[in-house]
């Protein structure tokens, strides 16, 4: 136990400073790491951090990096990520990460400094209306003006961040409150008076769902990030259901790893750049069970053509996710693990006789779609195809304990398509917000939580520059993070859309004046490697894996390669465009309604 922890024993009676209360609360909540950056308003907390050993502070190079690092930590461990930033610019720099965590349902506690209570509203130095700014980009936020409320708020914040659909919570801390003395309360003494989301499903609904499932002729399981958020047990139960039922299963970008990619029932990711077979099966199914997924526009394509002939079951812990975009027949509000346990029990109780003949015919159709080989690419002798680089990365790293993060763009989609995840919590990507610059700081958080694992940020050269300053952090903490750049010298996804929608007018999508990434790595104290030929790729990846040091690998890939297959915006699942190497036909041009969609 730390001195901070000891100081509060025998608990509640002893008065502590606000800063000590905060650290004591973090320790009692099981926190190990704080990602942060100091500044005037939070100096008292930093002084308290200096005087203890229970919590380790990781000094990032920009506050945005702190939030993404905390997200990476949270997503790879299932624990809460904790961030500490100062007032004003510290808080505003955190906003992108908070929004990212909100969109992807990641539990984050972000402590922000604030000017002293008496100066709030005075346009004081480094003052910002942090609770006002972060209200729409957090699950909840607090401004603590009274030190006697501080311990309660801290524990409540953890409850809010982790229960129901997880999300980021901001606690804004005026500097005078950090100095003021107040009582401490233990976590177990705090109960939230209004926020206690239900986890147990309505059993009548579960029975209805099983009724639909046992009679399905063309079923599909459509799983999402809610399975991962519910914990490893949820992934086991969903996988168990997949195998027990023999139904085909697809996962969203956020759900990858929930069901092992090697399982023959897994059809790959669905959605805009998902597999042909997954999207066709979604379109033609007669019973769909959505588990912890939210019918996002990247998944559904054109809404009025989305899976037109299916009855739909939707399991989600967040009632507002149900019937938001797509009306479902059987809504089930509950935690994935709890609900799947109930559903499996009901399934076993009935010991159903499925329509094996119809399901076998369904699988035959799926195998035909699979036969189109939608992720195919033609690797020649001279230029590295980006898909080939991901494929080789996968083959060479799959037998190690490997965690993958990504930035945002084409490389992200190729990683999602071609890297196969067998376990949950191994894949960290910015799905909802699509935040370029996410992958490098996220990898930092992952590596801290898993010091012996191989952590690779599959990156694009444009995205990685957005938080490149964090190389300095990974060097400081000797984190052997690997940044695997698929360098095509373009903002690839922007260019792809310009080809598709804007007559090949490459407005501002070419990255002129890129840095020499090898020298850049060396300048920061990392290892820099470059690969330009397909034949050298394996050797470079092996070198990256073996050196035990933070490393940038600059892979020069085909500059013109586009990411296929693709559902163009405004199109339906069965209107996918297949790539040139697949056994496909050219897709229809994008409609005018599709043009305006993002």
């Amino acid at each position, binding site marked *: 136990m730390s001195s901070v922890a000891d100081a509060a024993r025998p608990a509640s009676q002893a008065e502590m400073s606000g800063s000590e209360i905060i650290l004591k609360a973090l320790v009692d909540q099981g926190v190990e790491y704080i990602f942060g950056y100091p500044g005037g308003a939070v100096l008292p907390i930093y002084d308290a951090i200096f005087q203890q050993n229970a919590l380790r502070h990781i000094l990032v190079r920009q506050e945005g990096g702190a939030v993404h690092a905390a997200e990476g930590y949270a997503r790879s461990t299932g624990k809460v990520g904790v961030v500490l930033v100062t007032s004003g610019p510290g808080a505003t720099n955190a906003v992108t990460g908070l929004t990212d965590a909100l969109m992807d349902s990641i539990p984050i506690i972000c402590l922000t400094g604030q000017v002293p209570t008496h100066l709030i509203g005075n346009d004081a130095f480094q003052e910002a209306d942090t609770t*006002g700014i972060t*209200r*729409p980009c957090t699950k*909840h936020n607090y*401004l603590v003006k009274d030190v006697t409320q501080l311990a309660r708020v801290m524990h409540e914040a953890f409850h809010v961040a982790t229960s129901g659909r997880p999300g980021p919570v901001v606690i804004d801390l005026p500097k005078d409150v950090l100095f003021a003395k107040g009582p401490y309360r233990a976590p177990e003494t705090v109960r939230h008076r*209004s926020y206690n989301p239900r986890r147990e499903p309505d059993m009548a609904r579960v029975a209805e769902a099983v009724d639909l499932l046992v009679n399905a002729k063309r079923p599909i399981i459509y799983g999402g990030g809610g399975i991962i958020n519910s914990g490893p047990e949820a992934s086991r139960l969903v996988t168990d259901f997949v195998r027990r039922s023999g139904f085909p299963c697809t996962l969203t970008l956020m759900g990858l790893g929930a069901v092992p990619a090697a399982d023959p029932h897994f059809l790959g990711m669905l959605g805009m750049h998902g597999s042909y077979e997954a999207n066709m099966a979604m379109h033609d199914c007669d019973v769909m069970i959505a588990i912890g997924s939210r019918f996002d526009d990247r998944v559904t394509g054109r809404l009025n053509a989305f899976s037109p002939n299916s009855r739909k079951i939707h399991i989600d812990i967040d009632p507002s996710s149900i*019937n938001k975009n797509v009306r479902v027949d059987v809504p089930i509000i509950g935690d994935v693990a709890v609900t799947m346990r109930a559903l499996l029990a009901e399934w076993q109780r009935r010991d159903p006789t499925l329509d094996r003949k119809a399901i076998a015919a369904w699988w035959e159709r799926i195998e035909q779609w699979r036969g189109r080989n939608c992720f195919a690419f033609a690797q020649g002798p001279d230029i590295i195809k980006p898909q080939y680089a991901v494929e080789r990365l996968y083959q060479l790293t799959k037998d190690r304990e490997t965690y993958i993060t990504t930035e945002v763009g084409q490389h992200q989609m190729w990683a999602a398509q071609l890297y196969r995840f067998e376990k949950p919590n191994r894949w960290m990507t910015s799905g909802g917000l699509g935040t370029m610059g996410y992958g490098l700081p996220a990898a930092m958080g992952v590596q801290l939580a898993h010091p012996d694992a191989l952590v690779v940020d599959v990156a694009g050269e444009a995205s990685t520059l957005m938080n490149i300053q964090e190389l300095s952090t990974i060097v400081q903490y000797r984190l052997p993070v690997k940044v695997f750049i698929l360098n095509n010298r373009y903002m690839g996804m922007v260019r792809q859309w310009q080809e598709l929608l804007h007559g090949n007018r490459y407005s501002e999508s070419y990255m002129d004046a890129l840095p020499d990434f090898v020298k850049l790595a060396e300048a920061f104290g990392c290892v820099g490697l470059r690969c330009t030929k397909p034949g050298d790729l394996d050797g470079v990846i092996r070198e990256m894996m073996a050196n035990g040091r933070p490393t940038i690998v600059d892979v020069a890939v085909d500059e013109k390669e586009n990411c296929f297959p693709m559902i163009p915006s405004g199109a339906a699942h069965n209107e996918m465009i297949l790539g040139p190497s697949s056994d496909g036909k050219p897709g229809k041009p994008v409609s005018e309604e599709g043009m305006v969609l993002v």
Partner: protein
Amino acid sequence: MPVQHPVERHTIAVIADNEPGVLARIVGLFAGRGYNIESLTVAETDADKHLSRFTVVTSGTPMVIEQIKSQLDRLVPVHSVSDMTLGGPHVERELALLKVVGTGEKRVESLRLADVFRAKVIDSTTESFVFEITGATDKVDAFIGILRPLGLVEVSRTGVAAIARGKTPM
């Protein structure tokens, strides 16, 4: 594009902690997600428990109304959300203060109509009245419409307060 459903008007009652920023959370939710607010009435209704009651009149397709309720219920300080429109018989009232300026026949006529509508005179000068009227939105609308040609110069309305009929509390 989604199938177009008819737009409905719903009155929704929300009980929430009376704490700083709770109004901003609710209003921000409506603004941020593009929902309509036709009227919004707020006051603390339980001082001991620090609870406020919000009455929101909103409009949207049934799917949007369902979303509005789920989104409101998801806010951390919100204790309960109930749809008065779907919840069975209920009464709605709002209060309006109306200033009418004029002399002669128009002035007399406005006073006569106020009597018909059971509005009260709560201020008067030789050239003006301030009327207080309480009633359902339709009745207030009708009274305002009728006063307009009679010298109506200013309107202040509270928005709707609503409560279910019968003995069961929300």
